[in-house]
């Protein structure tokens, strides 16, 4: 820090995510709950309107809805699971995709500007649901022992390597997947929010608190960079949504596949 700076700058940290309840005394009603509830309302409202007529020649709204629906249905579900069985999982994957997408993008929308998934509970529950689903359908398809073999004993591996392979495959396919799935999404949202906070609050500190013209100029540059970071974050928000849902579809696809 430069000498002569009157007050200490405290960068945003984990405590920045500890928001007070919106209504005093109702501890569960926090900003992420409100935002995600709004996202559910928006998703249902949008798709209700888009799919209401299910016309052969779609309206603009229906076309937009079909565009989003088709993306999840074909580019994610069908490509990962295969056209024979993907339709069973399209509802969950669609719900997951649009829920994560809206809540992520909400972090860029002015006045909301808070990523729901930077609270890890949301990421946990989404990852655990995906985990339960792909393991359940795998066990239902291959049987418990068959599924265990399917996930831990890759075809073509010599028998003497099995003592090594089984624990590795078990950990990577059964244990680590929900953790990596949730942490990846959470960490991206968490870090993105902190990064933006650093740029915006840091710029604010430099412009208003230091009382130094040169530092104020640096602060303005910091804000501009924060704007660019916000653009980057929007990209990350969309990409992370896609990765989460694609991986879920991939896990389902590999759980019900016949062979490795």
């Amino acid at each position, binding site marked *: 820090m430069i000498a002569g700076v009157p007050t200490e700058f405290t960068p945003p940290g*984990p405590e920045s995510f500890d928001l007070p309840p919106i209504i005093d005394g109702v501890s569960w009603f926090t900003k992420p709950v409100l935002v995600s509830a709004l996202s559910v309302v928006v998703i249902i409202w949008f798709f209700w309107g888009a799919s209401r007529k299910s016309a052969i020649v779609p309206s603009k709204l229906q076309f937009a809805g079909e565009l989003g629906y088709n993306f999840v249905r074909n580019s994610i579900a069908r490509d990962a699971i295969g056209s024979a069985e993907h339709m069973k999982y399209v509802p*969950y994957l669609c719900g997951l995709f649009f829920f994560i997408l809206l809540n992520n993008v909400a972090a860029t929308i002015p006045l909301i500007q808070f990523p729901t998934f930077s*609270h890890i509970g949301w990421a946990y529950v989404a990852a655990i649901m995906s985990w339960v689903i792909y393991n359940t359908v795998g066990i239902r398809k291959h049987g418990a022992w068959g599924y265990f073999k399917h996930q831990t004993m890759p075809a073509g591996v010599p028998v003497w390597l099995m003592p090594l392979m089984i624990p590795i495959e078990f950990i990577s396919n059964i244990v680590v997947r929900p953790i990596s799935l949730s942490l990846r999404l959470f960490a991206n949202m968490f870090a993105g929010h902190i990064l933006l906070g650093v740029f915006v609050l840091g710029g604010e500190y430099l412009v208003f608190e230091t009382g130094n013209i040169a530092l104020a100029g640096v602060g303005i540059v910091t804000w501009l960079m924060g704007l660019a970071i916000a653009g980057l974050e929007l990209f990350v928000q969309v990409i992370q949504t896609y990765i989460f849902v694609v991986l879920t579809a991939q896990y389902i696809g590999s759980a019900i596949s016949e062979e490795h």
Partner: protein
Amino acid sequence: MLTMVLPLATEGEQPNPLLPHTAEIIFGFVFLVLLAIAFAKFFVPRFEKAYADRTAAIEGGMDAAKQAQAEAKAALDKYNAQLAEARQEAAKIREDAREQGAQIIAEMREQANAESERIVTHARTQIDAERAQAVASLRAEVGTMATTLAGRIVGESLEDEARQRRTVERFLADLEASESARQAVGTDG
């Protein structure tokens, strides 16, 4: 990693970002299930219905086009068959006409031949009859004239009718014979 980080939550004043809020887990579950049900119950069936209708409409259009094509082909075949039939018929009519024409010409020719033959025959008969008549009348006249002439020249009356007739007959026979001989020589020559 998780086990390494988790105990930190109890140490510092800073909240541990890896510890979930129970309420958020419950809400997350409820919201995701709600959305999955909404998609499963309403949105997916409706979109799929639109797709199915669209596919049906396109396939229906293609079927209709195929049918129209088949109909057009059938009509073309029919017209071609009719055209061939008509052509065949025309050829047959022409052939018939030609035959008929030839027949008519032949018939006409035959008729004309018969007619000409008839005319010729008739004329010949008439000529023969006229000639015979002429010969008969000449015979009578020439006899009288010759007798008269001979009576005048000779100056004597040939009273004997029988001798007279015999003389005339002999003279005419001679005359006829010489005539025929001359004619025969004329035709031969």
